[in-house]
């Protein structure tokens, strides 16, 4: 059986939590629900109201955009990535569907607690901002690339 201490070990390997001291990490592990998905199961669906963020512990997740019934895999996330934080920060419905590609293990952190964590650990907030900024940069680059492709 997995115990809190095992989960703390898992968390320590995630860069997002690297700077948090182990005793606090235990609290994170306690607050997080470990969820396990089999291949093809969805973590959440586009348009759902989101009340939690997820940290991928192991496995690969497909990010799928659904438009009028058609599903397009727009990205893949793997180990230690943060998913679903947008609904938590902005109170908007899920912007995409996330589905397990193979066996996926993730930690689910409730919205209220996630915001509380950020308040308590500024380093965590910094890392999340960096992560989001990277993503934005990537999205911008992708957008520019696709626009160029369209023009051609």
């Amino acid at each position: 059986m997995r115990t809190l201490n095992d989960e703390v070990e898992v968390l320590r390997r995630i860069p997002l939590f690297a700077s948090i001291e182990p005793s606090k990490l235990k609290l994170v592990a306690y607050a997080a629900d470990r969820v396990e998905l089999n291949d093809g199961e969805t973590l959440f669906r586009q348009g759902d109201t989101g009340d939690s963020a997820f940290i991928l512990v192991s496995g690969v997740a497909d990010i799928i955009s659904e438009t009028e019934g058609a599903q397009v895999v727009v990205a893949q996330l793997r180990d230690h990535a943060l998913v679903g934080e947008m609904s938590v920060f902005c109170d908007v419905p899920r912007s995409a569907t996330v589905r397990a590609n193979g066996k996926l293990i993730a930690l689910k952190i409730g919205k209220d607690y996630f915001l509380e964590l950020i308040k308590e650990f500024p380093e965590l907030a910094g890392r999340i901002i960096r992560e989001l900024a990277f993503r934005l940069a990537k999205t911008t680059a992708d957008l520019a690339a696709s626009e160029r492709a369209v023009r051609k």
Partner: protein
Amino acid sequence: MERNLLKFIWQNSRLKQVWLLIVIVASMPLYFLTLELPKQIVNGPIQGEGFSAAGAEQPFLRLPLPFAETVFGREIVLFEGFFLDRLAMLFALGLLFLAAVVANGAFKLYVNTYKGKLGETLLRQLRYTLLDRVLRYRVVRFRNLKGAEAASVIKDEVEPLGEFVGDAFSLPLFLGGQAITGLLFLFLQNFYFGALTIAIVGFQVWIIPRLRRRLIQLGRQRQLQARRLSGQVAETVEMAPDIHVNDISNYTRARHYGLLTTILDIRFELYQRKFAVKYINNLLMQFLSFLFYVLGGYFVITGRLDIGQLVAVIAAYKDLPGPIKGLIDYDQIRLINEARYEQTIDSFRDDGLLPAAIQQMPGQAVPRLRDGFRAERARLEDETGRVVLENLHAGIAPGERVAIATGGSDAARIAAGAFCAALARLTSPVSGTIMLDGKPLDDLPESLTGRRVAYVDAGTFFPSGTIRDNLTMVLKNQPVGFAEKTTPPTPPKGSGGLLHDAPPDETLDWIDLAALGLADQRAFDRHVAAVLDLSGLSRQIQDLGLRGTVDPEHNSAFCDKIVEVRREFRDNAAAFGVAGIVEPFDPERYNAQAAIGENLLFGTARVPGWELDALATNPVLLAILDRHGLRERFLEMGRRIAEARIELFGDLAPDSKIFETVADVSYEEVARLKEMMARLRMGRQAKQQPAQRRAKAGGKALSDREELLRITFNYCEARSRFGVLDAETESDILAARANVRETVAEMEAAPVFFHDPDLYNPTATVLDNILLGRVSSSAVDGREKVLAAVQELIARTGLSSGLLDVGLDFEMGNGGRRLSETQRQKLHLARALIKKPDIIVFNEVLGALDVASRQATMRRILELPLLGDEGWKPGILAVLLDDELAGLFDRVLVYRNGTLVEDEPDEIATRAGDGDDGDATADEKGAEDDAHAE
């Protein structure tokens, strides 16, 4: 109502009062006999008076005619009596005394019971009359009427009147008779002393009422302040959330204390005056004795009076103060009660009462509406008395759909609201008329408007009771078959306004199925289900049903079906997409999702002593733990759990959000855990240091060791993951579980209901009965998925109505607050639909819902046929929150130039489509989303 209390009592109980008086007078001889006989026993047989000669006999029960010597000049003996010797006489007199005592007691018993019953009956009718007045007040008046104050008048203030009624006439007559006899006797003894006494008593009669005037004033003030106090306390309770949110608890304290001090001051002055009056009274009476002794003594010494006369005068005087004191006390009670009564009557004045005939129960069926409402030149005011609608010409007929589009403007909304309220008879037009079927609305009986017209607004109040009670309440207009007796509650003549008849029994069958066009109870159940469906409540009430418990003895068919559903759920888990989410209860396996205590019991408690929180003090269970060597291990586990909790949460601030969101303990509990662990570490005997906490169940303080056990019993490894439960302990728990089962099986009344796949568990909720297992905490949205699957399964097996039935028994709590605001608004809507009225007025309904759900509900209501009844096409007047719905109505009214006029539906729809402020209002109101609605 009659304002004079004594007149009021006399008017309503004269025959009984006379009878009471007769009985009291009839009992007097017996009373004197009980005083007289002891004297005779002592003087006669005991002291031997008249028995000096041996074998002397005296007559027993000799009956001479009273006053015969004075009237006829000689003694006339009616009965010579039995002649008895000394010893026989003793026994005869003794037995006679015993008989007199018994008979006297019986009289007393009868008189007291009669007085009590008389008073209480009058009290019941008085309260009933006051309540009748409350019911007949116009709705406008309730703006200024505090519920708690009215309650305090009806309940507390009239209470002492009940005690007074029995004494109102009998006591003063009785005491007065005694006093007059005493005075007469005194006069006979000596004229001057008699005159002296009359002078003093006369002075008393003159001075006392003067002293008491202020007393009555104070009594009135006290009553008013006490009434205010109950009003204020009730308000404080009502606004408790506001008090906390705004930190005004201290101001509230001050406010209450001020009032309490005022009451104290009044009461203190009251006491001072009351006892001062008493003091003067006593003084005057004693002054009389002083005069008798001094003057009488002086006259005796100076030889103007012989001593025998003085002794006779003083003996005669002896009987006077008692009755006079009684009379004075009575008078005080009378005054206080009169003041109290007047005050009560004044606060329930008759002005503006609806005529009783308006609320009369009609003998026959209420006719359907033909023409509907018609307002002519109506002028309406709002609560503040400002005119909001002028020269209104508008109407609605049955079958017609009329919308009032306000565009969210305040003036239009207030005007539309005033119009709706006037149609619902909540207010009356200042001028002009509102007619219903050609008759002025004010003259129509409430039986017509109350049954044929429905009104719904944004109100969310419900009295406490089950959902079913509150839903069907509006159908309880008159008992079925009550056609014969049609008189409204009217006070008989010369009763001072008191009602004497009783209303029909509350427990009769009040719901007239025939009037609803329904054949039987089953049809009614279907009707209720359809109404709830239409209001968008079915699903939510079914959810409540899942959380409710059912007694298999009352509803065995339903419970049997639930057991079937349980099997189907288990067999087809994969088909519902919930495979592996529920970990079923298996007697041979440890259920990782359940707490240790639950695993040990493998069932649910039927008695408090076997609840999870009480197991730590359950001797039977502890003995079993010892047999498996589990108690020490559990203690150690409890210690580790406590330490883990302290490590996790010990450093958090008391206001940390973590306590609200993830921790399964509160800050206070963690603090207690810290204290407890410190105590245990210091090695003090735990038993001598009982923890300061109280167990939730048993209510008694647990010792530290018991507390550790309690923690362990409540611990679930899968949820907390502290790693304190190993496989070996699990298998030992399984062994102990088997042991528990054997032990409980030997008990006469099993305190535990064991999980059994073939039996319905009456102590568990319907949902737990279906699952017969625990939802895994590691599944994503496990609970929601399981709930959805259960709902689907229930719909498929046709159990919805049964589950709805269970859900309808949900207790709504104080003010209905156990339901959400949206649910309560929907329930108000359902109440309007369930009575199938001819016209329904919707005054900005369902404002608490989100826009989409609200519009969907309104659309459903505007569809035909409603509730599957082809013949029922109610007229609908709706003040819209979503103006884009206006196109669905036959006509649309808008607010223009201070009145409501017809508008073209297209125009409104276009305007609404532009996204005017009407939408904005709706969006704001629909903030509380309600996912279950659709």
